[in-house]
């Protein structure tokens, strides 16, 4: 019987099988941020176990609230910073060099095909875009990961989604994943891995694949995963050119992780995206999704472009396509949070930041920002935000606030008109 990519990665990292349904895996990369890690650190200290399994395999960043907004968040940053210094964790990104974890870690080349990755953050599934098994975990899993370099998982079943056809101009990876979540529902993939395959995925950039995998958790999935190929190898080339002589060689090596033709899936779906329109959420669950035409005209107060879902250079470029030479409506406020310093610099160089600012957007430093209402961009009671983030949960962006999730293109068009707008009208 053949194996799926997830099964191959599990087999290559198997440490123990404590029960027929559970496995303990060796973890290649343990990633940390300042919200979920400090309690793990202080707990390890209190137990006299302040050790790390391997400082080279631990990556850390301050990204959720940065710069610190008060004494409590300053303390969270300090606990992480002191710990990183104490244990000589070289890959620690502090203010000035920090960005959203799921954007900056891939950008640094930390995630490779076949890796196992955990982080105390549910959107860790993003890294499956590189053909890795990457899962969000809680603080105790993170704590054990830091200490021992292992994590427990149930043996994975995989849902394969074959995406075919061609996306219309104005429709992007965000629309595809919103539509998929609507089809699967918010728990349709619980305890499963979602393998995204097919011609549309093959032609997607790494940025688009990250958007796709980022929201796998919104259908309950443990991980979203793409098969590593030439696009992956090209993206990673600056980091792997000491390991492979040519990109071709890397592509060939990556193929060993590909699912076998006779691999067994718990479910297989086919999706032709040729007729897909831009998608927008309503309500308080990410599976409450409609075509933009059904939501058209809904007034909004704030537009937020950023996050681990859609704060990368391609996202900024696509929003700028709509914003160029236009002003946002006088009734709305626009906030852009480029996901990393590299994205920010590149957007400056390409004149994208100027386009956003001339349109009337506020540009913040790279941070998780408004997405989870912890730092800036918080909504007042009853206010509505058009957002490129990943969760429209009740109160997420501020108590009593309402969120509509959409692509950067749709968010930009919505900013210009002041109400939810099909971006194709402004292209």
């Amino acid at each position, binding site marked *: 019987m053949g194996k799926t990519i997830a099964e191959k990665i599990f087999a290559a990292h198997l440490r123990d099988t404590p029960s027929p349904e559970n496995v303990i895996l060796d973890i290649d990369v343990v990633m940390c941020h300042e919200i979920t890690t400090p309690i793990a650190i202080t707990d390890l200290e209190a137990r006299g176990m302040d050790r790390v399994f391997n400082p080279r395999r631990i990556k850390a960043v301050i990204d959720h609230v940065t710069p610190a907004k008060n004494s409590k968040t300053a303390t969270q940053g300090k606990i992480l910073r002191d710990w990183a210094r104490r244990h000589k964790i070289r890959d620690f990104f502090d203010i000035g060099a920090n960005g959203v974890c799921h954007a900056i870690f891939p950008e640094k080349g930390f995630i490779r095909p076949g890796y196992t990755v955990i982080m105390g953050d549910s959107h860790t599934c993003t890294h499956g875009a590189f053909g890795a098994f990457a899962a969000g975990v809680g603080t105790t899993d993170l*704590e*054990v990961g830091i200490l021992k370099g292992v994590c427990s998982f149930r043996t994975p079943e995989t849902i394969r989604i074959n995406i075919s056809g061609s996306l219309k101009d104005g429709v992007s990876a965000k629309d595809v994943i919103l539509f998929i979540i609507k089809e699967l529902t918010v728990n349709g993939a619980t305890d499963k891995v979602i393998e995204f395959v097919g011609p549309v995925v093959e032609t997607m950039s790494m940025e688009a694949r990250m958007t796709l995998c980022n929201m796998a958790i919104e259908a309950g999935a443990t991980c979203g995963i793409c098969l590593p190929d030439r696009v992956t190898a090209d993206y990673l080339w600056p980091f792997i050119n000491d390991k492979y002589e040519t990109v071709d060689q890397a592509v060939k090596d990556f193929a060993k992780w590909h699912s076998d033709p006779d691999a067994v899936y718990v479910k297989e779906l086919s999706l032709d995206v040729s007729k897909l329109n831009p998608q927008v959420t309503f309500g*308080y669950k990410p599976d409450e999704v409609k075509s933009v035409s059904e939501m058209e005209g809904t007034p909004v107060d704030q537009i937020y472009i950023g996050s681990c879902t859609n704060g990368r250079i391609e996202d900024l470029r696509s929003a700028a396509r709509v914003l160029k030479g236009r002003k946002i409506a006088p009734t709305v406020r626009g906030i852009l949070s480029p996901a990393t310093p590299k994205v920010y610099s590149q957007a400056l160089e390409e004149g994208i930041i100027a386009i956003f600012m001339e349109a009337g957007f506020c540009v913040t430093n790279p941070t998780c920002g408004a997405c989870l209402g912890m730092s800036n961009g918080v909504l007042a009671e009853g206010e509505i935000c058009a957002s490129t983030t990943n969760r429209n949960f009740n109160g997420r962006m501020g108590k009593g606030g309402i969120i509509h999730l959409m692509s950067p293109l749709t968010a930009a068009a919505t900013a210009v008109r002041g109400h939810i707008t099909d971006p194709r009208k402004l292209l």
Partner: protein
Amino acid sequence: MKQFGGKILFLDRSDINTDEIIPARYLTENTKLALQPYILEDLKLGGFTPAQDIEGKGVIVTRANFGCGSSREHAVWVFEVNDINVVIAESFARIFRQNMYNCGMLAIELPKKDLDTLFSLGGEVEISIDLAANTLTARGDKAATFVFKLNDFDKKLVEAGGWLAYADKNY
């Protein structure tokens, strides 16, 4: 090992997410105990008054996909510091379920028909749990006993008092 059982807090809704259990604005706290007053503060459920309804409860009984969304273990800790060590649901989100067992707490899945029975017992319902027999007995105006399945590994985590203790001993 923790003590399991007590009076039930019924939350009759599916897809209750971890932002509702403990909003992100409280994730700046650096101790578990500091989370205590904020339990279920943003829960979207008619007629529910968190501070009042939580009083004296030891078990939560709810519907499908409980604990979806964020990986924040704060959603488990806020129950723990409010002396709630058991959640019974039709299904759980993976990370929340794992976080419960990792803290040595119980996330028990029951089929919908058993949950319907639990919800209809009437009066103030109290649950006692027999981990050796994998049964739970609920007594309200009416009483009922249910058999539940517990994964071997999850049971080991509960007996060990959580994943850190288990992992430290075994790996």
